[in-house]
């Protein structure tokens, strides 16, 4: 019997950062043009309590299943006053939702530059350090912030500095690279470096949770792959990378090396496939795939929310991490048989039918499977409550209609069965619109739980990448992989059933 690499664990985290929304790409541009929007934006920011209560966020960290979320009446957002007395926990089986002060603590601890990028005063430094120290998982992060330089009070910042606020309270400033080599380099300006450090801090939170969930020491990881969309580097190597090792260093993964994989939104799926291939080839034993959050995507739809009198729902950085290892006869396997990993070749046209033929039908055919052999499909899983207000519709639902249409075209499903089939194999989108984060893999944690409980046996993950956004091609990309209940685990379940019957 062939052996496959497994997805051993998964972690998902959110950092609720309402006061960083203004530094998202869209709000930043619009606020520069219309400063009066700042007050309107501030009035529509959610409290931490409201973000924790939000059912889509609860689904992301695993306290709710996608099925439970789908049964909840829309709109999912309810003001705290209407949402009942009990706030659900901020920690879930997959990870947690941290508040802004905790995230500022992480951001400061992620800052290794001298002079520092995140300058603060003694009072706030102590407060942020205490915040991390009180957290059950975060004191172990491998930098001692007490050794970072600080000052009794904040000096007047340069005009390019970004104030880091919590409500009305100033916690400090975020600067560009203040050294000589940082001058005249727009890649090292404050907002670019804030974007990169937000990815590092949030990704490190997810990696820390992954280690905790898997019950392993950081030193046991031998390789880390980052799959975020940030561009780290200076003017001579913009987008050069190094994020994976930066996060691994912060989390104490002393024996790991790492690298960054880029494929726009599909990078997490691509990274999981590559991690699995490296494991299968025997190059590494335990690989962590990490995707940090995207500052640029915060507030991307803020104008639509203002227009509809809604709270700003894209107010959180999202991060996730996956542990890929050799077969443990228990965890879900990732199929790496010839042709099982889906791709969209250059020669494919950009028509949806052609794209789906390549990354949906071809892998199933290679494995001798039909679409109806898949228990759940995970396509783009953007929270529809965010995309619909902005006029983009329900992206997840659109994808299911196309998948079902392909099943009909392939003669594997009757046209009249489409809706019922979609309700069985589909789910509602629940991930924040953080670029690479919602692309198929938010379901991986839920899929692992469903396989453990024997509810599903096989899931297919379909991720899309808008690579045409690089202005170097008009192509798009698609990546897919199939995860199955481990045959060893299935045999153990069968043995248990047989022994009970005897």
């Amino acid at each position, binding site marked *: 019997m062939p052996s496959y690499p497994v997805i051993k664990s998964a972690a998902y985290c959110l950092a609720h950062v309402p006061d960083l929304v203004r530094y998202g790409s869209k709000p930043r541009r619009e606020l520069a043009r219309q400063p009066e929007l700042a007050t309107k934006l501030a009035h529509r920011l959610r409290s931490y309590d409201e973000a924790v209560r939000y059912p889509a966020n609860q689904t992301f960290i695993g306290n709710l299943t996608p099925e439970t979320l789908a049964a909840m009446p829309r709109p999912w957002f309810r003001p705290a006053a209407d949402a009942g007395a009990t706030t659900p926990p901020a920690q879930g089986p997959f990870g947690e939702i941290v508040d802004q002060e905790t995230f500022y603590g992480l951001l400061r601890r992620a800052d290794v530059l001298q002079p520092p990028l995140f300058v603060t005063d003694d009072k706030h430094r102590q407060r942020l350090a205490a915040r991390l120290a009180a957290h059950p998982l975060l004191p172990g992060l491998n930098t001692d912030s007490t050794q970072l330089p600080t000052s009794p009070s904040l000096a007047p910042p340069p005009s390019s500095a970004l104030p880091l606020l919590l409500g009305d309270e100033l916690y400090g400033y975020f600067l560009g690279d203040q050294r000589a080599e940082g001058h005249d380099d727009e890649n090292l300006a404050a907002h670019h470096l804030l974007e990169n450090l937000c990815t590092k801090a949030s990704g490190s939170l997810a990696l820390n949770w992954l280690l905790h969930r898997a019950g392993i020491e950081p030193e046991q990881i031998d390789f880390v792959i980052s799959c975020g969309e940030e561009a780290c580097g200076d003017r001579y190597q913009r987008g050069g990378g190094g994020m994976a090792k930066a996060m691994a260093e912060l989390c104490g993964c002393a024996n790991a090396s790492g690298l960054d994989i880029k494929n726009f*939104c599909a990078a997490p799926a691509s990274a999981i496939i590559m991690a699995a291939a490296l494991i299968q080839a025997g190059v590494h034993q335990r690989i962590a795939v990490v995707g940090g959050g995207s500052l640029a995507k915060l507030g991307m739809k803020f104008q639509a929310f203002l227009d509809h009198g809604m709270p700003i729902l894209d107010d959180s950085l999202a991060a996730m991490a996956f542990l890929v290892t050799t077969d443990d006869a228990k965890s879900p396997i990732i199929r790496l048989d010839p042709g099982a990993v889906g791709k969209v070749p250059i020669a494919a*046209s*950009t*028509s*949806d039918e052609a794209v789906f033929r390549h990354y949906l039908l071809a892998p199933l055919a290679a494995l001798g499977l039909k679409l109806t052999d898949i228990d759940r499909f995970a396509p*783009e899983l*953007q929270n529809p409550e965010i*995309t619909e207000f*902005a006029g*983009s*519709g329900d*992206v997840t639902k*659109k*994808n299911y209609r196309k998948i079902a249409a392909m099943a009909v075209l392939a003669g594997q499903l009757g046209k009249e069965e489409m809706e019922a089939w979609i309700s069985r194999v589909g789910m509602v989108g629940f991930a924040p*619109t953080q*670029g690479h984060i*919602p692309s198929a893999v938010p379901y991986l944690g839920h899929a692992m739980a469903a396989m453990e409980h024997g509810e599903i046996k096989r899931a297919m993950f379909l991720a*899309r990448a*808008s690579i*045409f*956004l690089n202005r170097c091609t*008009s192509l*798009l990309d698609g990546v897919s992989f199939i995860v199955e209940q481990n045959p060893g685990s299935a045999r153990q379940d069968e043995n248990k059933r047989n022994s009970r019957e005897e």
Partner: protein
Amino acid sequence: MLQGKKAIVFGERDDISGTTISTCLRAAGCEILYEATACFV
């Protein structure tokens, strides 16, 4: 119907890409003046 007409094409990644729309329109004899594909997520 589209022979000799001029078209401006807006596509979307999660619907129909601009490239695909343009390919169909060109096949029908249309001239594409501008084409863009947006990604709204």
